[in-house]
């Protein structure tokens, strides 16, 4: 009888130990899942400074096509105009915008230089210009789309970026129960993306911080290795030129796309950075005949510092920027970042970063990223935060 009791007690202890082990394993699995995907914190976009007015008259420029694919650009522009009107903003009619553009021979719709800033203000009565860039448009199943938009103030020879946000979405981002959440229609996905950006702009104009849809998985997209010079002062507000990245990837326009990611992320930190409108930078590149051979040289940097009254140049090199077609695949992004400071005339930041959409994903594709846009955005955010904090 006593032997039987001892046996039962031993069995009971074994069972308890196994249960504890099971609980520990489950807790670890949950923790890993949280690290891989659930820990995604939201990204916030700052509001438009009150000094620029809450409801300016807006010019919606034709969409800049960085996707190099056949995309419904007119539809996207129209969709933006409709959304802005619904939000109660006054939008300058398309024909008036076209006339001003034709009068000033404006061909680049990816930025606003000093001349066009004054022209839109005086000739179209606009207080701001909405610049939209289409980074990715893939209508095949599942559709994928990446859009970046920014609002730039007009009326001065130094147009200021008031708001900037972006979104990268795929039809199968949230499949839901029985795949009912999959978006198969590219038009619906486009409406969703435009709706998000219009909502973000509305929040910014209303003086609210926008809860963005970008994700930042803590530490997941930290640069592989970085150098931060002690000369980079976290307490100082830098005027930053973000120059187009030198592109050696197979994706045309990857250099300009990376530039936009950095402009957007730097704009989120107004306390630390004043970002110069890319249209002004492009104008200076053309004026000074700057051709980047293998990246930016100190001579080029000097010209930009003096002409744009900047004290930091952020640029880099894109080695890889790939999206994929179809439901199965893995986007990849690989780039280097470099920052040159005016006073010291030295490289004050250098980092290299590469990642794929499945980086840090361990269980059931939880946390997988389906567009290079979202990944590059998170990587750029990580670089900017490290630049500030070290």
């Amino acid at each position, binding site marked *: 009888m006593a032997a039987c009791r001892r046996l039962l007690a031993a069995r009971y202890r074994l069972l308890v130990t196994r249960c504890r082990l099971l609980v520990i394993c489950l807790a670890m699995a949950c923790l890993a899942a949280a690290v891989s995907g659930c820990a995604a914190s939201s990204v916030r976009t700052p509001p438009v400074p009150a000094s620029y007015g809450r409801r300016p008259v807006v010019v919606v420029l034709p969409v800049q096509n960085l996707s190099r694919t056949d995309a419904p650009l007119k539809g996207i522009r129209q969709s933006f105009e409709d959304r802005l009107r619904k939000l109660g903003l006054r939008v300058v009619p398309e024909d008036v915008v076209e006339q001003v553009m034709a009068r000033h021979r404006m061909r680049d719709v990816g930025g606003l230089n000093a001349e066009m800033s004054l022209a839109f203000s005086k000739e179209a009565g606009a207080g701001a210009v909405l610049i939209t860039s289409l980074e990715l448009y893939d209508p095949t199943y599942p559709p994928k789309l990446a859009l970046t938009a920014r609002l730039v103030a007009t009326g001065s020879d130094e147009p200021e970026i008031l708001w900037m946000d972006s979104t990268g979405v795929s039809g199968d981002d949230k499949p839901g129960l029985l795949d009912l959440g999959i978006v198969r229609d590219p038009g619906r996905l486009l409406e969703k993306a435009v709706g998000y950006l219009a909502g973000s702009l509305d929040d910014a104009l209303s003086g609210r911080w926008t809860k963005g849809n970008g994700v930042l998985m803590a530490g997941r997209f930290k640069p592989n290795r970085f150098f931060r010079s002690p000369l980079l002062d976290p307490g100082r507000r830098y005027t930053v030129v973000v120059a187009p990245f030198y592109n050696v990837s197979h994706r045309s326009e990857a250099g300009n796309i990376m530039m936009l990611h950095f402009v957007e992320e730097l704009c989120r930190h107004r306390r630390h950075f004043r970002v110069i409108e890319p249209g002004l930078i492009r104008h200076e590149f053309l004026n000074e005949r700057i051709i980047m051979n293998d*990246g930016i040289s100190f001579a080029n940097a000097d010209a930009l510092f003096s002409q744009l009254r900047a004290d930091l140049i952020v640029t880099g090199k894109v080695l890889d920027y790939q999206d994929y077609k179809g439901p199965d695949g893995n986007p990849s992004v690989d780039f*280097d970042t470099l920052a040159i400071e005016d006073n010291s005339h030295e*490289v004050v930041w250098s980092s290299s970063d590469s990642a794929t959409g499945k980086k840090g994903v361990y269980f059931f594709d939880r946390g997988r990223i389906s567009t290079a846009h979202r990944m590059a955005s998170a990587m750029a955010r990580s670089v900017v935060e490290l630049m500030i904090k070290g």
Partner: protein
Amino acid sequence: MANLKRIILLAVVVMFAGCGGRAAVYHDKNMDFGSIHTVAIMPFMNLTTDAGAAERVRDVLSDSLLATGAVYVLPSGEVARGLARAGVNSPSEPAPAEVKTFCSFVKADAVITGVIREYGEVRSGNTSSTIISVSLQMMEAQSGRIVWSASATEGGITIWDRLFGGGAEPMNAITQKAVDELIKKLFA
């Protein structure tokens, strides 16, 4: 029995001799490496089929050297400008005279040249893996002579891979390892 033990011992020694010796290093004993503050990394010679290999390794080396805080590395754009001004014919293998001229233009204390011998996937039978093999040289600015040279190989197919298979390490990871090994040899 004694003979068998000797044969086994000899086989083990031969096996380890084969595994070791993957890297070589040369340091000029007369050179004061502490005097080198600014370094220019030249475009590397690429002997592999991957067109981007040289660019990737160069960038990783540049960041890693800067991250040590021991030397300052000139940006690649400034190097390209210096090469154009100095009229260097073959940037991956410059002549000593060209090194001197180039360094005087960009104000560098030394230049690093390199060769990427292997980069990418290797296959043997059913087993595949990733491999990188790099060799670097440092030439000082005053005389243009070689003061340091080293090579490193990372990755490749191991006995473990052959027996049990398993995924190859990503190229980025083994590139970083090879570069770390080279930097360790530079500061050794």
